[in-house]
């Protein structure tokens, strides 16, 4: 929040220092590597394999992993390696977009609840608590039944499920800061509410939340994969890790490789993001430990 008077020194160094700190932790380095691997696979999916993830090949059904099909094929003869790479796109897309939207909504609602009048705060807290009292998957199932299975439905579910949590964290911290001496000092100088929120509160509450949200990315990936596993996420031909896992689950006694092809990427991605998120938190905000 340097406004006019001073300029932060050395922009490049500012970017490199945190990365070096993460790499110094073995778990952080592993997490970063796994995350980059998944991103790389998703971005360059078309260059890494020549197979079309949705093309059905009846002559190549149920082939185990091998030279021709790196991870084998499924019950329709589709190449699993291609499906896994393209499934990564869906997972990352859902995770990043819905987390970003949730964060934005959560921050705004949290600031309003925390800094606004008491009755509004009470009302919003009641709504957040009620929202959080639905078991996630139950709510998701009910909504998808109504909206029909789609990627949008999954994202709506994710946003509905995560916003109350973010808003509550921002609210709690805003309330704590509202009575802090430096906010009182700003009020005493005549600062407007907008200025207090923008200059004195937001910069001090946003950091921890972004770290917590980054740790929620694996949860979101899990929700998407879970919904797709139940056949309530992406529509059939589109590859998703969850639907691959479902294909594998159906034939788990005979063709376990399909279940492995669907599940291992989920494990790699969730572990990668979690290790990275944990390290980020330890490095930048050790106070959050244990949340």
């Amino acid at each position, binding site marked *: 929040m340097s406004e006019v008077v001073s300029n932060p020194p050395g922009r490049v160094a500012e970017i490199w220092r945190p990365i070096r700190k993460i790499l110094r932790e073995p*778990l952080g380095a592993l997490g970063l590597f796994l995350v980059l691997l998944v991103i790389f696979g998703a971005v360059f999916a078309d260059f890494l394999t020549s197979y079309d993830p949705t093309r059905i090949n009846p002559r190549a059904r149920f082939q185990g992993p091998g030279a021709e099909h790196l991870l084998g094929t499924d019950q329709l003869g589709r190449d699993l390696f291609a499906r896994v790479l393209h499934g990564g796109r869906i997972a990352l897309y859902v995770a990043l977009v819905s987390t970003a939207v949730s964060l934005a909504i959560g921050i705004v609602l949290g600031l309003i609840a925390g800094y606004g009048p008491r009755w509004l705060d009470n009302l919003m807290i*009641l*709504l957040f*608590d*009620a*929202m*959080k*009292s*639905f*078991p*996630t*998957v*139950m*709510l998701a*199932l*009910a*909504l*998808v*039944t*109504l*909206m*029909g299975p789609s990627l949008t439905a999954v994202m709506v579910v994710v946003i509905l499920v995560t916003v109350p949590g973010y808003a509550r964290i921002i609210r709690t911290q805003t309330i704590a800061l509202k009575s802090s001496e430096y906010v009182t000092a700003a009020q005493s100088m005549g600062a407007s509410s907008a200025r207090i929120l923008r200059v004195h509160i937001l910069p001090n509450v946003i950091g921890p939340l972004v770290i917590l949200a980054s740790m929620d990315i*694996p949860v979101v*990936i*899990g929700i998407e*994969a*879970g919904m797709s*596993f*139940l056949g*309530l996420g992406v529509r059939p031909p589109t590859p998703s890790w969850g639907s691959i*896992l479902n294909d*594998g*689950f159906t034939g*788990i*006694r005979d063709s*376990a490789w399909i*279940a492995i092809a669907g*599940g291992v990427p*989920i*494990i790699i991605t*969730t*572990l990668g*993001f*979690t*290790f990275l998120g*944990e390290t980020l938190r330890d490095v930048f905000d050790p106070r959050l*430990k*244990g949340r």
Partner: protein
Amino acid sequence: MLTYFVKRLGLAAVIVSVAMFLLFCMIYLIPGDPASVALGPRATEEMRAALREKMGLNQPVILQFWNFYVGAWTGDLGEEVLSGRPVMTVVLEQLPFTLALIAGGITWSVALGIPLGCWAAVSRGSTADRIVGILSVAVIAVPSFVIAIYALLIFAVQLRWLPAIGAGEPGNLGDQLTHLILPSLAVGLGWVGYIARMVRASMLEVLEASHIRTARAFGLPDRMITYRYALSIAILPTVTLLGVGIGQMLSSAVFAEIVFARPGVGKLVYDAILTRNFPVVTGTVLVTTVLFVLLNLVADLIIGALDPRVRSSF
């Protein structure tokens, strides 16, 4: 303590009411009409109109909500679309199976999580601490249904140690418990990690507190300090966390029931979706929500019983 209980109960009732209102709003606002959903694309316009009439969808919104609200509180969640059985009866038939599953999950998470967390906190910085830390993070990260499928694949399909499907023979407790092991592990494993981490973190925080320093300065034995002075405080956030965890375990239970083909509310709701049995879906959501709120209330009451500060602040 009684006023505390009454206040918490009142708050729980308000939260359930608001949750009902939210659920109703979602049903009402989201494009898609429960009658069309129930009947599927091939239904004629007359059939839809008839069902709408029967489900009361032609009444004013406020009245619809009021009927829904009063019905829910009196245990009337409507009827199944096809069989006409009361939804409440259907849900209550399945609920014990899910409750058993969650109880199993809680048992796993508490029985493993609390000792692991304590051990890690007491031996902070050691290899054991680091391993517990990494394992906790790992089991938290991996979604429960992936754990369920791989547990099935490894222990039931490959090693054939444990049964793969069903809830066991009715009346045979041993068989039912064997059938419970894998699904409840799938539900509870992530929570072993959560609990272990929470216990470790709050133990470390409490061990830093000045009253622990005072206890050390009085030369009290380490065991007394760790288990009576520190754990009795460090356990409090864990109880709250477990209350929240029950909601997530309810979610995981849906997957566990489908993967292990067990009866239960998760399986019920999944089947209801496939057969477009919408009243069962909303009914199950409501019942599980009430259950979750009630179990959270229990967690709060336990906290009240354990912490004199909470008790006297009400």
